[in-house]
Each structure stands twice: as structure tokens, then as C-alpha cells.
């Protein structure tokens, strides 16, 4: 335990990076999931096949592969583009924070696509017809009727997606993001105590997972409050 003296604040800042990346990726995941499920449910053949290709590719390949492809791929492309303007430039990359959050959001977004698709299909068609009959536009029906009815159904599996998201943030340390795993590596370099440091990282992630699990429980209670028996 003495080995940890002086590293607590680094672990704290590392955890903060995890939180930041989690929220950025969470927003993107919801976005990709909504777009993907809308495309899968649309009548357009093109949109449907693009969305299918998206879910097949991102659910069928290792997360680390997507991450590395994104980071190194974007770096090589950006460097090539930059060199057109200034041949002196040696290396340009997307910051690991953005490459990483985009990559894990695309991965978890492909799972969310399927979840949202199922949830949209689970919405009672009568409700949508009622909204139509009331003269609500397509957009208004989507926002005021479909989404509130669907998120109740999507919440339990989406809780699992949030857990995957927080756990996937650990991978971003591989491309050099200064989050907890990265801090641990530095701490090991000076203290020579790998077990202690990685256990701390594990404990931090366990804490995050617990918070997410509890939040999902609270959200589920809130979403289903109208179904609770009056006391």
C-alpha cells in the first residue's frame, strides 16, 4: 500500500478521463444506435444493407482491431493529407481521446442498433396510429410517442451496453490515452509493483460498473413508474 503514495491523484485524473470518454462515447453510441436502427427499419434497401453491413462488421471483429485500425488508419490518412500542404510534417493523428471514443462508440453502437431496432418494433402500433390520428407529424410522433415508449423496452439491454462501454475504455490505453491503465503502467515503471497498481485499476472499474448498474436500476424504476401498483 505504501507503493501507492503519491499516485492517488494520478489515478484520480485517470479516472476522470475514463468518465469523460464514457460520456462522449455514450452520446455517440445512442446516436449511432438510433441512426442504425432507423436505417434497419426503413423501407430503403440501400439504408438497410448499409446498416446490416455496419452491425455485421462491428459485432464480428475484435474491439482492439477496430481501435487500432481507427487510430493508425486515421493517422496515416491525415499525415498524407497534411503532407500535400506541408511536406515538412512527419506525423499527424487524431487525438487518442477522439479516435478511441469514436471507435468504442461505433462498436457498442452496432449492438445498440439491434437493441433499439427490437425496442422500436416492440412499441404498440396502436400508439403510433393514435398519434397519426391526432395529426402529429412524423418527427413529433418519433420524439413524443416512439422514443418514450421504446426506451422502456431498450433500457435493460442498454444497461449492458453501457457496461461494455465503460470496460472498453480500458483498451484506449493501448493507443496512449492517459487513463487509469496508462497511469498504472507509469506507476509500475517507478515502483515495480504491477499487482498493486493493476488491482487499483480493477477496483476503479468495478466502482464504475457498480455505479452504472445502480443507475440503470433507478432509471428502470423511473421508466416503469406508471406500472407500479398504487400503494
Amino acid at each position: 500500500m505504501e507503493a501507492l503514495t503519491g499516485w492517488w491523484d494520478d489515478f484520480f485524473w485517470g479516472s476522470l478521463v475514463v468518465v469523460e470518454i464514457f460520456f462522449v462515447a455514450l452520446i455517440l453510441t445512442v446516436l449511432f444506435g438510433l441512426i442504425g436502427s432507423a436505417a434497419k427499419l426503413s423501407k430503403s434497401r440501400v439504408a438497410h444493407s448499409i446498416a446490416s453491413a455496419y452491425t455485421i462488421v462491428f459485432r464480428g471483429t475484435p474491439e482492439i482491431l477496430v481501435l487500432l485500425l481507427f487510430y493508425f488508419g486515421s493517422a496515416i490518412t491525415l499525415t498524407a493529407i497534411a503532407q500535400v500542404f506541408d511536406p515538412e510534417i512527419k506525423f499527424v493523428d487524431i487525438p487518442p481521446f477522439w479516435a478511441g471514443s469514436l471507435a468504442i462508440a461505433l462498436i457498442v453502437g452496432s449492438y445498440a442498433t439491434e437493441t433499439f431496432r427490437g425496442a422500436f418494433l416492440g412499441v404498440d402500433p396502436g400508439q403510433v396510429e393514435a398519434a397519426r390520428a391526432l395529426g402529429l407529424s412524423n418527427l413529433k410522433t418519433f420524439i413524443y410517442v416512439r422514443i418514450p415508449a421504446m426506451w422502456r423496452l431498450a433500457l435493460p439491454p442498454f444497461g449492458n451496453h453501457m457496461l461494455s462501454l465503460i470496460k472498453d475504455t480500458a483498451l484506449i490505453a493501448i493507443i496512449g490515452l492517459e487513463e487509469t491503465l496508462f497511469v498504472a503502467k507509469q506507476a509500475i515503471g517507478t515502483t515495480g509493483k504491477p499487482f498493486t497498481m493493476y488491482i487499483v485499476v480493477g477496483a476503479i472499474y468495478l466502482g464504475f460498473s457498480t455505479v452504472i448498474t445502480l443507475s440503470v436500476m433507478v432509471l428502470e424504476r423511473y421508466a416503469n413508474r406508471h406500472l407500479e401498483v398504487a400503494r
Partner: protein
Amino acid sequence: MSFDFALIVDSIPKILTGIGLTFQLLFLSAVLGLALAIILLLMRISGRWYLVAPTMVYIYIFRGTPILVQIFIIYYGLPQLEFVRDSIFWPILREAFGCAIVALTLNTGAYVSEILRGGVLGVDRGLKEAGAALGLSARHRFIYVTAPIAIRLCLPAYSNDVISLMKSTALASTITLLDMMGIARTIVAETYAPYEIFISVMVVYLILTWIIQRGFGWMEKRMSRHVRSEA
């Protein structure tokens, strides 16, 4: 920057030399993980608190932390502890391969035991009661009534877990193992052609995912052939 097809043709055979290691990691940890999952399941449904509590803690820890952190704790962390180095497990934990198998097994065991539990809980109570009425002992009821139905119920979820296990084997490349991912990363480090190499290895992983899906799909169909509707 251009897409170098000759490089792809050149490197695919090299990448495929790692497929054996990927398969070894997948099969060994799938089989050992399933055995572990069954033990955990039996402990979990035993109804004895001193068996249930440790199982719940185990599952909570292994599902709540990233697999990458688990791999690092086992590979980099455990050698810090003297009693691990003196133990009989040291020959396994000294090797990166052994560590990867241990980490993947412990991780997948936690997930699979929850899937199995879902299957066991999904078995109709009436069937178990019928078994009891026929005078079958608890053990016989579990083996001849609950287990066959539970296996069929949890097969779809289990196939997803095998796919995510396959994706997790790619993380073995972070502890120096040269599975397909490890080889791909080495080639990228030499050629600096992330698109060509990573996309090729991505295709190989997609094919593996497809094969696993197809295999389990076939099994599901076979196991539920008696419930297929007469069409």
C-alpha cells in the same frame, strides 16, 4: 498513400500462421470456461449461502472489470507475489500463453455461468414438478429434465458469448503472444500499412464469427427439431 493489394496477398499467409494460436486460445478457454461455468452454476443454485455468496462475488468482479485489466493482473501482476512464484501454478503463469488461457477462462466462466443460470431459471416449473411426481431424485431431475431444456434455452446466448470470447483472444496480443492479431500488429509495425493489414485480419475474424454463428445455428435447429411447427 495507396491501397497496396500486393501487400495484402503477401501478408495474409503470414497472418494465417497465427490462426492456430487463436484457435488454441479459443478452444482451450471455451472448454475450461464452460467447465468452470458449470461448477459456478451448481454452486449458485445450490441454495447454500456459503456456496452462493462466493460465486456472486466472483461473477460480480469478473463481469465488472475489463478483460484487459484481468489479463494484465494475471500476466504482469501475479509474478509480484512471492507465494505465486513458489506455487505449483507457476509453470503455467510464467508463460504468456498460460496466463492468457487462465484470464480468458476465468472471464468467460463468469459470463457463461450467468447464461446457464438464465437457462435453468427458464425451465418450466411444471416440468420439474412432473419429474418430482414421477419420483425422480433432485439429481436425476436436474440431469434428465432441467439440463436438456436449459441447454436448448441458453444456446443462442451462449453462441454470442463464444463470439465475444473469440474477439477477446485478440487481446492476447497485448501480452506478447503472436496470435493473428499479434502477427498483424507486428506486420503493421514493420510496413506501416494499417489499412491493408488490419482490414485483411478483420476479414479473417469476420469469417470465424460467421462460422461460429452458423455452427450454433445448426445446433439450435437440430436441438429444437421436435418443436418445429408443422408447416
